[in-house]
């Protein structure tokens, strides 16, 4: 299950939850209707977009190559920047 914050949910037509059976985080994010807001044109995660898999930042694992088993909760969050 992928969970999106409110702005992204609005951009996804009002949907904040998406099921996924992707094998990796990259595959899961690319399938979303908001993929271009999460990934830059080189396909990399935008610097202020954080993605957590079962509470762990994917940047602390294998980044976009982080493997998925299918039952994880994937939460997309905007990084806290500023005050």
């Amino acid at each position, binding site marked *: 299950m992928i969970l999106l914050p409110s*702005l992204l949910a*609005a*951009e996804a037509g009002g949907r904040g939850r998406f099921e996924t059976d992707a094998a990796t985080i990259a595959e899961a994010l690319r399938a979303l209707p908001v993929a*271009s*807001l999460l990934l*830059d*044109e080189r396909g990399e995660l*935008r610097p202020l*977009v954080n993605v957590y898999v079962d509470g762990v930042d994917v940047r602390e694992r294998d980044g976009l190559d982080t493997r998925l088993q299918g039952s994880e909760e994937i939460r997309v969050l905007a990084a806290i920047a500023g005050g």
Partner: protein
Amino acid sequence: MSRALLVGTRKGLFVVRDGEVDGPLLPGWSIYHAVRDPGSDTLYAASNNFVYGATVHRSSDLGRTWERAEEIRLPEGSDLKLNATWHVEPGPDALWLGGDPGVLHRSTDGGVTFEPVVSLVEHPTRDRWQPGAGGMCCHSFQIADGRLYAAISAAGAFRSDDGGETWTPINQGVAADFFPDNPFPEVGQCVHKLLAHPARDGRLWQQNHCGVYRSDDHGDTWERLEGNGLPSGFGFPIALDPTDPDVAWVVPEEGAENRVTADGRLGVYRTDDGGASWTLEEDGLPAPAWLAVMREGMSFDDDGVYLGMQSGSVFVRSRDGRWTEVAENLPPILSVEVADWQ
């Protein structure tokens, strides 16, 4: 048909109409510029988010629902990436989009997809361009007399006589005082806003980092206009009178190192003689005041001039010269565009 003001702010788009404020539309997005295409009646917004990047939204139902453009890319192999979308300009055959880093895109499917204008991305002078304080933004795009005009801060102004296949720098006579060793280079000028007069062939106006200028030959040469009533040559927006090519309005600021309206007031200065002289307009405008108007913060039509400020107020100038505040307490205003509304 009535009139509406599309007010782009750091916190979404607002529509000011008949004394009412509707919004925010596109909450969470900074709207650098929004426009209604008079051909299709579609609303377009150059929208940016500091987390999610730069895009263009469009609405065919007056802002009730929005769709987002597909990813806006730069040419394959380019080491550039899109930092911001700045200005959307509907044309007869395409929708044009100016952006950062000094790039132009074109859409021929109503804003669903955008293709980069490669000739500008790969312009042979690009290595002499540099970003201004707002980034290296292509903030002005005009279609006039069958020609295209693009202005980039700080690369200067460019004209295409062949539909965008090639671009000629048009900066002769425009100062770049920040290059003391070469104050009149071919490119590198910091143009802040460029407009083509809709009724006078070849007449262009520009507010520059280093002065206010007018051209009567499609930009081949420019005449510097301040020192004759203006408190400063520094400012960002410029507005025209579509019925009189000799009329223009600017909002001078103290200068590059103190970017606030000059003389402790919101002073709008008008010329009616092609820039030979300028007169302060103050009727209805606040003073004392220390304000800022962004480069897209003025618009105009046959009925008046429209002004939005960083402080969140919108003023309208009627034909009799009086300014009236029509909205206040909006988020910091980035852009104002007048549009027909129904």
